[in-house]
């Protein structure tokens, strides 16, 4: 006896349709066929990364990021500046090729790298909602918490890619043009080229962490809208406003709480001992706090949201 068999007085022509198959078949394995229950798989994360890396727009963005240090190195070589002139690292470039990526990172952390982060963060949830793929991901099913975790992990990795896209070509071109002499740290001591490469790697990781904090803000914004461009612009505005606030001396009390405020402290990694200025730890702690707070906000917003896109 099943629901399908209940007839009504009006069912006199029931016979002209095939009988309900469900009614005589009996229950079909309600407790699911044995499926391999995996709690963790990197397939979705790898798929995310392929999606980010495969998109032409992102490839073009990486190319733009990579061009900046090359242009800087060539420009410095051609202008041969006098000693002591120019901003921090730019003047040191001629002494060691590794200052090229450092100078380029200092320049690009202002706008280009946050912009790249904004585009990716906009795509993360709002982009999927915009083209409708979000509903199909969720019905696969991908749990919403898991989706946010994977999306955030992919943004963090992409942040490192962005930094690498600046640092690697910068290092290659810099070394090619200016050589691999010993590097003079900001404390005045000299370290060997090999040690300097490690310092550069630390800088890259530190800046990636800064961008990852920004990405958490972006991920949160991405859950608020179905327009990826709107989410990207919003994160750009967040970044620009942060920089503006950071430049107002009257707001000095606020500066330690601005994630951008600590980014340019990466120079501390070029001191002896490493992190001599003491700001690296604060920067990392604030980045972690941003990541936790805004990822949680994104989760709070997304976990119970009606997906009508």
């Amino acid at each position, binding site marked *: 006896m099943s*629901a*399908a068999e209940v007839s009504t007085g009006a*069912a006199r022509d029931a016979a002209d349709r095939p009988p309900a198959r469900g009614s005589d078949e009996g*229950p079909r394995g309600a407790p699911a066929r044995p499926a391999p229950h995996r709690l963790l798989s990197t397939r979705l994360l790898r798929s995310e990364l392929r999606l980010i890396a495969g998109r032409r727009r992102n490839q073009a963005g990486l190319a733009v990021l990579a061009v900046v240090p090359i242009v800087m190195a060539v420009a410095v070589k051609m202008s041969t500046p006098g000693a002591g002139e120019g901003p921090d690292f730019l003047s040191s470039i001629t002494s060691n090729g590794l200052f090229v990526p450092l100078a380029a990172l200092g320049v690009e952390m202002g706008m280009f790298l946050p912009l790249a982060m904004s585009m990716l963060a906009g795509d993360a949830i709002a982009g999927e909602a915009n083209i409708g793929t979000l509903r199909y991901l*969720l*019905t696969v*099913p991908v749990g919403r918490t898991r989706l946010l975790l994977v999306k955030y992990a992919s943004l963090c990795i992409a942040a490192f890619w962005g930094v690498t896209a600046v640092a690697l070509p910068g290092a290659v071109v810099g070394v090619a043009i200016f050589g691999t002499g010993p590097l003079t740290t900001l404390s005045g001591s000299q370290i060997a080229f090999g040690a300097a490469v490690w310092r550069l790697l630390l800088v890259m990781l530190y800046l990636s962490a800064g961008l990852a904090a920004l990405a958490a803000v972006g991920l949160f914004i991405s859950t608020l809208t179905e327009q990826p461009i709107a989410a990207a612009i919003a994160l750009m505005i967040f970044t620009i406003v942060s920089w503006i606030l950071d430049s107002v001396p009257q707001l000095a009390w606020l500066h330690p709480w601005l994630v951008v405020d600590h980014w340019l402290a990466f120079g501390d990694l070029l001191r002896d001992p490493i992190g001599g200025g003491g700001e690296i730890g604060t920067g990392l702690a604030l980045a972690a706090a941003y990541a936790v707070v805004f990822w949680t906000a994104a989760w709070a917003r997304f976990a119970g949201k009606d*997906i009508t896109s």
Partner: protein
Amino acid sequence: MTQLADPSGRATMEVPAPSGRGDADEALAVRTDGLTKRFGTQVAVDSLDLRVPRGSVYGFLGPNGSGKTTTIRMLLGLVEPTAGSRSLLGLPMPQGATEALHRVGSLVEGPAFHPYLSGRANLVRLDAADLLAEPRTSGGRIDLALDRVGLRAAAGKRYRAYSLGMRQRLAIAAALLAPRDLLVLDEPTNGLDPQGTREVRNLIGALASDGTTVLVSSHLLSEVEQICTHLGVMREGRLVAQGTTGEVRGVGTVSVRVETGQPERAAEVLTRLGAASVATSPTGVRADAGDLDPEAVVAELVRAGVGVRGFALDRPSLEDLFVTLTGEGFDVSG
């Protein structure tokens, strides 16, 4: 379990007592109780009691804006209901979502894929997202799904280059990536040419005969009529009829039609037999069948000397029934 409606569309429920909750859940692929969704003050879905038996092909009908898609979104866990409960394959949603949805293939409000990925790459991505999918069999399952919808040859093309019909096929292929116990297909033949429509119909038939339950929403009534064993009709967020196709179709009145050269005499005979609403035309007579025994009617007509050229019992077409249940006109409800 049937709900019938009077022609005004106000639902009058006639729900026989279920044969024990456990049994009913085992036999139902989809079950909702009092499922309700309000968006602000607007009631999109109003206390829906959906019963989709396992193994059935359930036609989910209703005009645009009647709440079909919202219902489907609630079933799949995309939209949280304001009230009521829902279960898929006997598993309560959303608690059982991970297990249940893996066994449910769905097509919701048209295809949606990444435009700059190929059709195949899009399927690879969806398969990668499924924790319960076996990575080693991924390639084979994707090929199989592409074959079933006839898209294998175009699988390497970017999705943006696909025609609407190809996109629809890819969406169906995505729904078939894993062995499914339930398919929820929202307007699966949208954008397909007549050939494609037929293929999809055959595909649904083949899947159903393998034991897959299919919940298919459609506005193309002729298709639904051909493939569905069960029907549910929505109007303004309410289910106005539900049951086997026969039960639901039985809601309409059956009429007798006599083709004859002597309509007046035939009309006399029918009136004498007690038929209601007898109407004559130059080529014959039509009347409500009521309790008339068709064989007796023919015998009586012949005895009265009426030359019968043709005799038929006409059931209302599904379209007529649909209009009766959901109201006429093109106005989008709500």
